[in-house]
């Protein structure tokens, strides 16, 4: 299947509540032509090749207490023991013991841990992709302190190279690598959009300034589906009088390489941003309202580059909070009750817990926290690429209901978040359940309430 053929066969569904691949007639959850033996070998190789001491300690420490099941939203709604987070790694635990652990030689020689089979990997595809958003809630319950989410990411490295990725996710990731944007927001599309938005909203949106203090990035979901975010960002940055720019050589922060498990693609996309920021001599790179984009650049960028980043990386909420704290950004009061959905990658795993709350405080809203909130928040169910996978919908909607119950319980008038992926999951969920409630963007809420008084 050539690249264009793939596009024709599975055209992007841009108009729906979520940006995804149109429901494919034929399932292509197996990619490429490989012998079974080669698939297994590549799965193991790519799983093990990025292994290190920390992951090894995790693999050595599990005591099979089963507590992680309690933390997982998928298990919570399904009750299916297979959705126990650590069980999702079972073939890879086997692979670790057989291929890499201290007793690997014994396990191999005595064949105590049999070689993983393609059938097993195929069976586990659903567990590793459809029923895991890599939200990391399970990592907080593990009495051994195992970061299970990081192991799932690592297992996906093997799955991808074995050509065992859910097809929609693979198609989105592949397109991201090929065109620079998973959803078709190519540099040309992006430039057109920016020009059109600037025109439409009579606002100055700098693009491709050779030098700028701040390089701003966007997620493809925002570019294609929530273009208001672009306007909102421009409005705020212009108000702050910051020397900033978008750059067509590095604007797209979404990282489906990370989600699908292709480290090469992940690196390629991350390096684009880094190179663009370095070229612009940026002091700061502002990341959009996108969870995995945050993880990919903020916490993994320097490791991709191989040295500390020569600039600061901030999520837009952090950027806003900083400017509110320094008094540069003043906002009008919003007399509404608001509940805030904590995006897993930004809050729980990213550590930006207080920034969104500082912004909300500046907006003067009555913040009604969910129960639980912050780092313990339930995931929306769409992260980690799950929202792109159609066959995952049934369970995902149940998870989504869990989330909505949480939100309804607060009784807040407004629900906002600061992750476009969460937003599209909400939009899709609301459409599915034919609900009225909208999930707002923190960024847009701020842009709408910029104080006029200087």
């Amino acid at each position: 299947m050539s690249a264009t053929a793939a596009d024709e066969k599975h055209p992007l569904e841009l108009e729906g509540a979520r940006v995804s691949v149109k429901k494919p007639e034929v399932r292509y959850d197996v990619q490429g032509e490989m012998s079974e033996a080669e698939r297994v070998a590549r799965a193991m190789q790519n799983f093990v090749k990025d292994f290190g001491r920390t992951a090894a300690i995790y693999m050595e420490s599990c005591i099979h207490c089963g507590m992680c099941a309690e933390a997982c939203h998928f298990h919570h709604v399904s009750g299916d023991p297979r959705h126990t987070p650590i069980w999702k790694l079972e073939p890879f635990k086997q692979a670790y013991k057989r291929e890499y652990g201290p007793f690997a030689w014994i396990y191999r020689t005595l064949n105590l841990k049999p070689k993983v089979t393609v059938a097993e990997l195929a069976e586990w595809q659903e567990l590793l992709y459809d029923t895991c958003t890599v939200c990391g809630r399970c990592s907080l319950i593990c009495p051994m302190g195992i970061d299970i989410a990081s192991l799932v990411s690592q297992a996906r490295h093997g799955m991808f190279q074995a050509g065992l990725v859910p097809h929609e996710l693979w198609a989105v990731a592949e397109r991201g690598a090929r065109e620079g944007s998973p959803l078709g927001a190519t540099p040309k599309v992006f430039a057109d959009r920016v020009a059109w938005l600037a025109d439409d909203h009579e606002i100055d949106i700098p693009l491709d300034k050779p030098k700028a203090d701040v390089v701003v990035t966007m997620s493809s979901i925002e570019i294609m589906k929530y273009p208001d975010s672009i306007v909102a960002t421009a409005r705020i940055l212009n108000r702050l009088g910051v020397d900033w720019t978008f750059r067509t050589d590095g604007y797209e922060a979404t990282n489906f390489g990370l989600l699908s498990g292709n480290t090469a693609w992940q690196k390629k996309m991350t390096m684009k941003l880094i190179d663009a920021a370095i070229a612009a001599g940026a002091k700061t790179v502002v990341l959009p309202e996108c969870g995995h984009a945050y993880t990919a650049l903020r916490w993994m960028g320097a490791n991709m580059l191989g040295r500390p980043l020569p600039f600061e990386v901030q999520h837009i909420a952090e950027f806003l909070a900083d400017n509110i704290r320094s008094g540069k950004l003043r906002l009008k009061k919003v007399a509404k009750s608001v509940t805030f959905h904590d995006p897993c990658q930004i809050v729980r795993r990213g550590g930006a817990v207080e920034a969104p709350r500082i912004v909300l405080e500046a907006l003067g809203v009555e913040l009604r926290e969910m129960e639980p909130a912050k780092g313990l928040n339930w995931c929306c169910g769409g992260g980690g690429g799950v929202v792109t996978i159609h066959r995952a919908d049934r369970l995902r909607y149940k998870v989504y209901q869990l989330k909505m119950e949480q939100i309804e319980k607060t009784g807040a008038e407004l629900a906002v978040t600061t992750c476009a992926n969460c937003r599209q999951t909400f939009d899709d969920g609301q459409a599915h359940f034919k609900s009225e409630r909208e999930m707002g963007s923190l960024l847009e809420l701020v842009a709408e309430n910029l104080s006029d008084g200087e």
Partner: protein
Amino acid sequence: MNPAKTIGERLAEAGVSRRAFLKFCTALASMMALPPAAGPAMAQAIATRERPSVIWLPFQECTGCTESITRSHTPTLESLIFDLVSLDYQETLMAAAGHQAEAVLAAAMKENFGKYLLIVDGSVPLVEDGAYSCTAGRSNLALLKEAAQGAAAIICVGTCSSYGGIPRAAPNPTQAVPVSAVVKDRPIVNVPGCPPIPVVITGVLAHYLTFGNLPELDPLGRPKAFYGETIHDRCYRRPFYDQGRFAKTFDDEGARSGWCLYELGCKGPVTYNACATLKWNAGTSFPIQSGHGCLGCSEPDFWDRGSFYRPLAAADWGSAKTVGAAAAAGVALGAAAAWAARRRQDRFVKEAAAPADRKPEG
């Protein structure tokens, strides 16, 4: 002597009253850990029996066991010898000597063939055909084999004849073995101890006299009546063990207060014997009561089980050297495993990179 007479008749002739005999049997019952009510029954039984012939052969031994039995207080040695059994040969105690003594032995074995009790103290050396211990020019080994043939039963007195004892301690230059290693076809009762409690020796004889058979034995061939429980179980200091109160040295407050001697190496918990109840020296005391831990002398190989002053729990886990060697081996294996894992990883990186350009497409 007329062996047809019963013990009861002989006693009566000797002017021993029924009261005296009943008292004697009460004491025997107490000693054999039988219920107090058994005394009168025993008196009845013993009175109607004939005196058995007893032949006592000393082998590779120290005469400590004989010393011990001469200190037996219940019944007194005199009454045991003259009234209850016919001790026909005991080279240490008998008046006869030399050829005369050997003639007595030969006569006793012939006269009572198949009926006499054979008591043995001392182990049997095997090396050089048993040449390391001889009596009248004959090795213990040969003598034992001959004497065993006519014995109704063999009673091994002391740890040496029971289990080999000190002669058998490593490196065992004489290849000493217990009687049970030489004689396989005769009932054997082991009365171990170094020496055994004197009243246990007589107690076994009394049982034989009372019931006409050998007492019930444990798997190590010891009479359960005396070796059924550990010293620890019957020790009057046991409550302190349970309370966790221990003497730490031989002269500390705990030692003076009579607390448990476990920490000082007492082997009471693994020693089956009756010292704690029967005691020694006419019931005066026993080692633990005197402030010293039990050595476990009635157990097999007691001499080779480490220091008498090492607590039982301080098992032989090895030495700093062996543990160090194990640690070194562990570190080396770990390093090798990590090295192998890294090499494997390098290979995987290379292999994974090789077909990387091939897009996984249809």
